[in-house]
């Protein structure tokens, strides 16, 4: 089972600042997903990246997949308190018929007003 390393573990910033969180592996990702989880709720899928070098944007969030597909980043521009939450990356494990995911340990983001 591949290990997904996320960094930083904790991030505390002021509203309006920019930030980047990372997800890395020693092995090549088949594809990678980013989820956001708010306290007391289940994670919600933000994006799936598949192709090396791929960049996807979701409003103020920019997701990049490394050229070698061994790393990914999530950049948030002008963070808002509503961005507060746990950001998780996940990789498929096993075939599509099972659809299992392996999750990283997450980055806890706190955006202060």
């Amino acid at each position: 089972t591949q290990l997904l390393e996320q960094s930083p573990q904790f991030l505390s910033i002021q509203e309006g600042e920019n930030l980047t969180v990372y997800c890395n592996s020693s092995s090549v990702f088949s594809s990678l997903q980013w989820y956001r989880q708010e306290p007391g709720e289940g994670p919600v899928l933000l994006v799936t990246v598949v192709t090396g070098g791929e960049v996807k944007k979701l409003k103020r969030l920019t997701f990049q997949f490394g050229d070698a597909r061994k790393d990914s980043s999530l950049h948030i521009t002008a963070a808002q308190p509503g961005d507060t939450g746990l950001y998780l990356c996940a990789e498929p494990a096993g075939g599509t018929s099972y659809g299992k995911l392996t999750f990283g340990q997450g980055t806890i983001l706190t955006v202060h007003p």
Partner: protein
Amino acid sequence: SQTIHQWPATLVQPVGSPLSLECTVEGTSNPNLYWYRQAAGRGLQLLFYSVGIGQISSEVPQNLSASRPQDRQFILSSKKLLLSDSGFYLCAWKGGPWEQFFGPGTRLTVL
């Protein structure tokens, strides 16, 4: 549209007591279903998954078991809870090749 329900939302149980957590999915048929456990503010650990009625695969050895008595019902159980069973339990269903949709979770505290 599809929805996923979990209950109870919170549970406080003494060590050694039994456990039963329920997950139901609406608006889809024969979904893959998953049980995860999450330590406080950390990543998700896959406990069990099911590709159909009566079909359960266990990912990690533990004090828990799972059952799928109906197509859209997934149950997590234990005969005797341990302190280490405390955590946030999440049920999910497979919506696409790799996409999973999560329920609201159950916060379990074992005292």
